[in-house]
């Protein structure tokens, strides 16, 4: 009797400690998917390119498409196959409808074990997880993927508030990365410039295709743009043939004119910033609409999506306050739900990225004043003459109140908020 109680006490303690000590990336990403009872018509599978590339909240607002972005940093086609399998099995187990469509980004393969941890640690041990660990983990590391406690028990000395109260992603799997970066390598935009698909990637795309077929799901292949690894870009062009042979829809957005500016629409060379994401989402939405995904904006569940989109606007407005660099601030003003009044000194326009960002703000919704040398900016905080750039931002639906305002100085390329 007492031995049983000791075992129970131990098991309870272990369960709690396991949760507390675990790496929180996975739970932050997937908890919303685990908890929601929404029906998703589309699931996105891929790497960080997709996390920063397609926003379900924007998709619903603009096209009425209910979707979830299952993608995870550093998890490519192979891990994507297992993540999709696990996600579908979970839906089947809970008796929920399966999605109508799966959109897979065919970028890269070769998951490292730490990236697999980031994706998989919050999933309970299952047949699929075991299979994934066996096939994808580096030598001798499959056990730690199946039982992450063996790795994380030593995190006791690193625990932070986020471990006790994890900050759960409420954006349907999306992350907004605020930054502006130039490309740093060749950008392959010719569909005929090809390279053979390497490794086991194709066999896993086959597996995803078979999985989707067995569940009556349409598989769509995409390739989200980036500006590094030209070989990966060339490899993506070989998927045209594969898609044709397998009668799949494939869009390599590297080769499409979707209005992306590689100078200002990327957070870094691999990931779209929120402006790039919006453009990408718009294109994917068009594609899905063309493929017949249902518009649910008139259905009962639309109210909840709309409410969440309002919170999404608040979230973006709040993030403005943390931005310290002028370029990134100007990028974040390229937001359909924000209206800004911008005063900028002409000397700043010598910077190509700033010039492009300012040009884009002149869209009739925002107000831009270019101040000539010798003249002073007239900021609303009264600190006349102290700034090179000053912005006042309102939410579009709430022009009465100021969402954020602030000035920046520009000194030899250093542009910081003052």
């Amino acid at each position, binding site marked *: 009797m*007492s*031995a049983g*109680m*000791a*075992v129970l*006490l*131990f098991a309870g*303690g*272990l369960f709690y*400690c396991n949760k507390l*000590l675990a790496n929180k990336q996975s739970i932050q990403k997937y908890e919303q998917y685990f908890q929601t009872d929404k029906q998703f018509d589309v699931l996105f599978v891929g790497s960080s390119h997709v996390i920063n590339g397609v926003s379900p909240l924007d998709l619903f607002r603009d096209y009425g498409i209910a979707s979830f972005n299952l993608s995870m940093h550093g998890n490519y086609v192979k891990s994507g196959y297992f993540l999709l399998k696990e996600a579908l099995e979970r839906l089947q187990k809970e008796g929920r409808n399966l999605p109508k469509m799966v959109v897979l980004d065919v970028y890269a393969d070769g998951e490292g074990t730490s990236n697999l941890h980031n994706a998989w640690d919050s999933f309970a041990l299952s047949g699929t997880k075991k299979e994934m660990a066996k096939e994808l983990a580096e030598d001798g590391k499959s*056990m*730690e993927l199946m039982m992450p*406690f*063996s*790795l*994380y*028990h*030593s995190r*006791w*000395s690193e625990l932070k508030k986020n471990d006790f109260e994890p900050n759960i992603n409420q954006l349907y799997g999306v992350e907004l990365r605020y930054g502006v970066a130039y490309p740093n390598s060749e950008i392959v935009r010719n569909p005929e410039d090809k390279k053979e698909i390497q490794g086991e990637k194709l066999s896993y795309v086959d597996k995803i295709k078979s999985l989707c077929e067995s569940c009556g799901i349409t598989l769509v292949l995409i390739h989200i743009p980036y500006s590094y690894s030209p070989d990966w870009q060339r490899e993506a062009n070989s998927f045209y043939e594969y898609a044709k042979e397998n009668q799949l829809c494939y869009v390599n957005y590297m080769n499409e004119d979707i209005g992306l500016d590689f100078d200002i629409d990327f957070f870094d060379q691999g990931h779209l910033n929120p402006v790039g994401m919006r453009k990408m989402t718009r294109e994917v939405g068009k594609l899905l609409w063309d493929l017949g995904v249902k518009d649910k904006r008139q259905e009962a569940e639309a109210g909840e999506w709309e409410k969440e989109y309002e919170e999404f606007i608040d979230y973006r407005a709040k993030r403005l306050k943390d931005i310290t660099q002028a370029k990134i601030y100007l990028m974040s003003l390229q937001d359909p739900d924000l209206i800004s009044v911008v005063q900028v000194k002409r000397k700043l326009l010598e910077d190509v990225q700033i010039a492009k960002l300012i040009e884009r703000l002149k869209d009739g919704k925002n107000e831009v004043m270019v101040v000539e040398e010798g003249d002073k900016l007239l900021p609303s905080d009264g600190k006349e003459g102290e700034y090179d750039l000053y912005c006042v931002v309102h939410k579009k639906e709430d022009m009465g109140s100021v969402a954020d305002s602030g000035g920046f100085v520009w000194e030899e390329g250093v542009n910081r908020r003052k």
Partner: protein
Amino acid sequence: MLFNSWQYLIFYPVVVLAYFLLPKKLKNLWLLGASYYFYMGWNARYIVLLLFTTIVTYAGSRILERHRKGWILLLTVAVNFGILFYFKYAQFAWNNLALLCKMARIPLRDRSFDILLPVGISFFTFQAVGYTIDVYRGEISAEKNFLKYALFVAFFPQLVAGPIERSRNLLKQLNKTYPFSYDRMREGLLLMLWGFFLKLVIADRAALFVDTVFGDTGKYGGLYIVAACVFFAFQIYCDFSGYSIIAMGSARILGLELMDNFHAPYFSKSVGEFWRRWHISLSSWFRDYLYFPLGGSRKGQMRTCWNLMAVFLISGLWHGAAWTYIVWGGLNGFFQVMERMTKGLRKWIRELFCIRENGFSHKLFSVLVTFFLVDFTWFFFRIKGLRSSFSVLKRVVTGWNPWILVDESLFQCGLNRKNFYLLVFSIGVLMAADYGKSRGICIRKRVLEQDFWFRWLVFAGGALFVLIFGIWGGTYDAKSFIYFQF
């Protein structure tokens, strides 16, 4: 397989479960099979050595029982020690011979024996040889049942790192089989839990600091090395006693009682006392089969000192085929010789300054001095190579850096601040338990006497503590128990 491995966590419950389910006749056979499987987990081929040692000592003892001839004993012992010598000392002996030849300008080619040391060979060889000598002396009768004897030599909990059991204790227990006992299981589990605490929380955590400092003695000098030596004293203690205690716990659940190998050694008030409390199974082996036959302390002061030096030099060699181990053993012998020779002088000083031998302050002083001396010898145990030991010792003396005790430097040596403090706290817990033990208080028994809720908390909380704060799994390669190499 290591005690702190997934394999053992599966192996051991299966062995225990089957042991209690099998009919009486098959229990020992099952344990023997399990023990051989356990040993083959390292190197399946070396099972032949274990079997050979078992057969030779079994046959030798049966013959000795009927014909008590010295040459038969000598032959049996020589065959076993010959195997041990070949696998453990051949390379060392050849290297030293080559060095001597070089000095004498006699040509001798370099030779690499390239021999993989069989795990635990020193332990099972000594155990089997001890049994043979016991039979020769007529202290026990030779075991007729070969399977039972083979189990005595190969019993898995103590096979690869001791305790080196005596036939009078373990072999006798194998005459019986044991039904499942809830009390024994509780006691065994508590012992194993304590053993894992010592190994995973203290020894392997201390190793992170010690390995960092000793891994780069060019960078770390002065008090870094002193701190590393202090931690090494606890690393080797917890590593070895941790293994012994897990072995005791594993055997206890099966109904068998192994000897206690450590008795609060760092509370010893002299180096002689330390060796009566440290690795008791080996110390008593040397005492019974080497020191006493050499004459022990019965043949005058000089002969006693000589015997002590001989025993500890051989003990050093038992621990490893390197000069550092011989120096280590020699120093331990030397300190004991000095203790004997200065006995009168120390008494005179105590009387002169009116120091009470049994007073707390004198006891504390003696404990601290003994720890210092023993820890000094551990330095030679840990360092690689005799030549480097002298240059590192020089760096201890010349590298004056007391500020590392008050700034953040000590937290940059493989352990961050939290892990450093956890190690110090855990050593405090160990010392408190050892103090209790030295005063005759067995904490394990005290815990088992408590009300059920307190026992639950100790079991569940202790297991969780070890799981969370132990160094295991993940990117960390579980360190082998240090004593496996001997």
